[in-house]
């Protein structure tokens, strides 16, 4: 009996459930590998792409709270992201506040809450610096 003959005989003795489980696992794995190959070819750029957005404000009794969102649309981690928020007050004077995020990964979204005077006019935020690995 050839080795091939032994294998065919051995295969036929295997319970069907083993082949069903193996087949399903193979399909799942092929799907994941295909998706990764697509990511390799058309995935996000291999650098940090940061953007900052200002959310709605919440009025408190003596102040307002403004949420500042930081989003990384790129494909790399950014560290020590420094955001400068500029608050325009009711008398048109401006004050600046620094917000520092330790790190933000690819596709990640983080936020900080900024406490500003209750009667502020506007809040703007810009990314001043960050470190990219």
């Amino acid at each position, binding site marked *: 009996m050839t080795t091939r003959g032994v*294998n065919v005989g*051995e*295969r036929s003795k*295997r*319970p069907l*459930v*083993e*082949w069903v*489980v*193996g*087949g*399903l*696992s*193979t399909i*799942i*794995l092929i799907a*994941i*590998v295909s*998706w*990764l*190959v697509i*990511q*390799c070819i058309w*995935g*996000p750029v*291999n650098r940090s792409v940061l953007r900052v957005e200002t959310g709605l404000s919440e009025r408190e009794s003596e102040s307002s709270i403004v949420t500042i969102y930081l989003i990384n649309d790129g*494909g*790399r*981690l950014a560290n020590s992201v420094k955001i400068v928020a500029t608050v325009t007050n009711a008398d048109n004077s401006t004050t600046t506040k620094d917000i520092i995020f330790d*790190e933000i*990964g*690819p*596709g*990640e*979204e*983080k936020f900080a809450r900024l406490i500003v005077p209750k009667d502020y006019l506007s809040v703007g935020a810009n990314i001043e610096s960050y470190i990219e*690995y």
Partner: protein
Amino acid sequence: MAASEQYTTSIAIKTLRNFGRAAGGAVVFSLPMLMTMEFWGEGVKFSSARLLLLVVFSLPVLVLLSQYIGFERTNCWFDDIFDTVVAIGISAVICILVLMLFGVLEVGMPIYEWGTRVSVQLVPASLGALLARSQFSSKPITSDVKTEIEPYGREMFFMLIGAIFLGLNIAPTDDLLLIAFQITPLQVLLLLLASILAMHSFVFSVDFRGGTSLSHKGNGWSSFVRLTLPGYIIALAISFCFLWLFHRTDSLNFTVAIYATIVLAFPCSIGAAAARLIL
């Protein structure tokens, strides 16, 4: 009368030896996690609902583990359930004592903090307690292992245990996410292939002690499709579950969550492959 006393004493000694073995297993398996600050550090908050899920879903796994190995020989399901409860109790005591020694748990701390910090350690410690007989017993347990459940299911179960153990060690750490953040899609793909290759070669290609009859029967492709690939899918599933349980996927988009899952599946798959040999 003397014979009766002697019998009672020998039962007591045997029980104490079993409990001591379980305590030893709990310490050995949970110590890496007891000494990892991501499990108990300041600001670490695990959702109570998710912790409850972890404990509840681990119960049938622990009962099955008691059936296969356990810290003592059992005869029926009631024994297995009883041993599981004992293992959880011993693990809770061990975790509380060690965490108090480390200054992590203090008298006067809110009960919620105690509950969170202990319950997250219960699963690995209980696993250790129930694996104690395979690790610390002087007698081989192969003859005790129940064989009525088909070997394929047992192989899958042991792979699940190995994946759970290594996955639990690493899932809550920040290092894992850092790797997932800085890795490229090509590296993720290579890591996935390396995990499968390591898993397969660990048991089938390299002549390790403990390779089972299932490993040696049939050709390589048969074993690869029936055992290695399902084992890797188990490792992937466990990885994703742990990442979700420990809030690691909460702020991630889909792509990075998949990357983190594949990164964590690397140690999980090694654990799964190793468990088939060690247990």
